C-alpha cells in the first residue's frame, strides 16, 4: 500500500504532508497529556511492533501470502493518536532506512496509513462496541481492521487516480501515475476488499482477543476520542452539504459519463457501456423540496441509512451469538 516516490506529483505530496502537520501536532500534544511518562516508550515499541507485523506472512488461498499493517490493532490497543505517531515512525523508518516508500511521498503515505486508517478503526470499533459487553469485541475488532484498511486503500487509489487528470505535459500525456480513477480504484479495492482487508481483520481480532484473554488490564491508556464530536461533525457536514451546489463541477471522481468526456476528452469504453444505477433520490434531490433542503434531507437520509445498517448488522451478530450460547 505504500506509494513509492514519483507516482504522485510533488504538489500532491506537499498538500497531503501539510494536512498531516496539524494531525501530528495534535497527536503529540494528546499523547503527552494522556500517556503517563512511563508509557511513552510504548509508542516506539508500538512502531517497532507495527513494523514487524508487516513481516509476518499469512497464508492466502492460491498459495500466496499476505501481511497486515497493524494500524487498526495499535489504534484499538493504544488509542488513535498514539497509533498515528507509531505508524508515522514505522513509515519513516521504512522510507529513510529501507528505501521502501518515498521520502517525499511520506506525507501521503502517512495521511493514508497513519491518519485515515487508525482513526477509521477507532470510530468503527467504538460505534460497534456501543455499550455492549465482551461478546461484541471480536466482531468490532475484525470490522475495525477490515473497514479501516479498505478506507486507507480507497484514499490511496483516489490520490493515485487523480494524477493523470491533474498533471499532464504539453502533449496531454500524464506526468506521474498514468492510470486514472477508473483503473486505480478497482485495481486497489478489489484485492483489498476480498483479501487484504480480511487478513487485517483476522489479525486485528485474533491478536486483540489473545491480549484481552491474557492480560485484560491497562490496555488503552490513551482513552482516545469521544464519539460525540463525530456526531457533531456529521451534522455539520449534512448542513454544509448544499455548499456543494456552489461549486460548478461535480465532486472529484463522481463525474457522469458526459462530464468525463469534457475533462478527459473521451469516454472510457467501460463507462459508456456501464450500467446506469437509478437511485430513488436522483442527483440528491428530493422531489417537492427546494434544491438546498433536498440536499440536506438526502444527507440526513443517507446517514440514517448507514447508521441503521450498522445497528442491524451488530444486532444480528449479537442475537446469533446469544442463541449459540443458550444452545449450549
Amino acid at each position, binding site marked *: 500500500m505504500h506509494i513509492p516516490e514519483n507516482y504522485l506529483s510533488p504538489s500532491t505530496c506537499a498538500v497531503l504532508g501539510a494536512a498531516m502537520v496539524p494531525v501530528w501536532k495534535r497527536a503529540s500534544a494528546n499523547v503527552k497529556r494522556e500517556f503517563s511518562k512511563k508509557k511513552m516508550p510504548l509508542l516506539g*515499541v508500538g512502531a517497532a511492533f507495527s513494523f514487524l507485523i508487516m513481516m509476518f506472512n499469512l497464508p492466502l488461498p492460491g498459495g500466496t501470502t499476505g501481511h497486515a499493517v497493524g494500524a487498526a490493532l495499535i489504534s484499538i490497543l493504544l488509542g488513535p493518536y498514539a497509533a498515528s505517531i507509531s505508524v508515522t515512525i514505522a513509515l519513516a523508518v521504512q522510507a529513510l532506512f529501507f528505501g521502501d516508500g518515498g521520502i517525499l511521498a511520506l506525507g501521503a503515505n502517512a495521511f493514508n496509513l497513519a491518519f485515515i486508517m487508525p482513526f477509521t478503526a477507532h470510530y468503527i470499533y467504538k460505534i460497534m462496541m456501543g455499550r455492549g459487553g465482551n461478546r461484541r469485541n471480536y466482531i468490532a475488532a475484525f470490522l475495525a481492521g477490515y473497514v479501516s484498511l479498505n478506507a486507507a486503500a480507497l484514499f490511496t487509489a483516489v490520490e493515485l487516480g487523480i494524477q493523470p487528470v491533474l498533471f499532464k505535459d504539453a502533449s496531454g500525456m500524464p506526468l506521474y501515475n498514468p492510470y486514472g480513477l477508473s483503473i486505480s480504484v478497482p485495481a486497489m479495492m478489489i484485492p483489498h476488499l476480498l483479501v487484504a482487508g480480511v487478513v487485517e481483520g483476522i489479525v486485528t481480532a485474533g491478536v486483540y482477543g489473545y491480549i484481552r484473554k491474557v492480560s485484560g488490564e491497562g490496555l488503552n491508556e490513551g482513552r482516545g476520542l469521544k464519539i460525540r464530536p463525530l456526531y457533531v461533525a456529521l451534522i455539520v457536514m449534512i448542513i454544509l452539504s448544499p455548499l456543494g451546489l456552489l461549486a460548478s463541477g461535480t465532486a472529484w471522481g463522481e463525474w457522469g459519463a458526459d462530464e468525463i468526456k469534457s475533462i478527459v476528452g473521451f469516454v472510457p469504453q467501460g463507462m459508456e457501456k456501464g450500467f446506469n444505477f437509478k437511485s430513488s433520490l436522483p442527483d440528491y434531490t428530493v422531489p417537492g423540496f427546494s434544491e438546498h433542503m433536498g440536499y440536506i434531507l438526502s444527507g440526513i437520509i443517507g446517514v440514517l441509512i448507514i447508521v441503521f445498517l450498522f445497528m442491524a448488522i451488530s444486532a444480528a451478530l449479537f442475537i446469533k451469538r446469544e442463541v449459540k450460547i443458550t444452545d449450549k
Partner: protein
Amino acid sequence: MDWLFREDRYEPGSDSLKFIDKSLMSILKILSKIDRLGGQRRGILYGVTPPLKLISTILTVVCVSTSRDATFLLSAGLFVLINLIMLEKSDRKRVLALGITASSFSAVMLIPSMATGNIINSLIIVYKVLLTVSMANILSVSTGWFDVSASLKLLLIPDIFILVLEITLKYIYLLGEISLNMLTALKIRSIGKNNNKYSSISALMGNLFLKSKEMGEELYSAMECRGFTGEYKRVLAFNISRIDAVYAIIVLALTAAYF
C-alpha cells in the same frame, strides 16, 4: 515386548510450513540489515558528517522529483554514480540491487501505459525511481542510523518523534529476535501435521505485544534513573572537515543545476 521389534510406520500427512518459512526469512533479512550496521567502515562517503548528508539527500530527492530538465536529471544520475563508487563493494551491490528491483517493478507496472503511447514520461518515472531509491539507500548504508535520528533534531523535528524513532530502531532488533525465536519454536513443535499453526500466529503476535509493553516500561524506568527528562539536548559541534566541504560544494553545484 513385541511392539519394540515392530517397525514404526508413522507417515505424517503433508503439511505446509511455507508461511512460517517466509516470515522467518523476512525477519531474518531485516535483522541482518540492522546487524550489519555495527561496524565502522572506511571510505570518503562514510566520513561526511551525518546532518549534512541527511539534508543533502532530502534536498536532492526533492529536486529530482520536481525536475523535468534533462541536464539536471543526467547530472543527478552522475552524482548518484559518484556516490556509488565511493561506497564499499558489498554496500554498492546492495544499493544497486535495491534500486534496480524498485525501478524494474515500476517499469512492469507502467507497461500498459507505455503501450498506449505514453513512453517518455513513463521512462522518466522509472529513471527517477532508480535515482531516488538509490539516494535513500546510499544514505542508509553510509550513515549510522542513530546518527541520522540525531540529525533530525537539526530539522526541528519534535523530541517525542525522535524519542519514538530511537526506541523503534532499537526495538525492531530486539522484538525481531524474539519473534524469530517464537517462530522457530512453532516450527520445531509442528511435528507431522499441525492444524493449530494458524491460530498460534495470532497468539504469537499477541505475546510479542505484551512482551514489548513490559520491555518498554522497563526501558523508560531505566532511562529515568539515568536522568532522562524527555528532552534531547544536542550540542552543536560542527566540525566541518575537508570532506564535508567538498561534499557540500558538489551538492550545491547539483542544486544550482536545478535552477
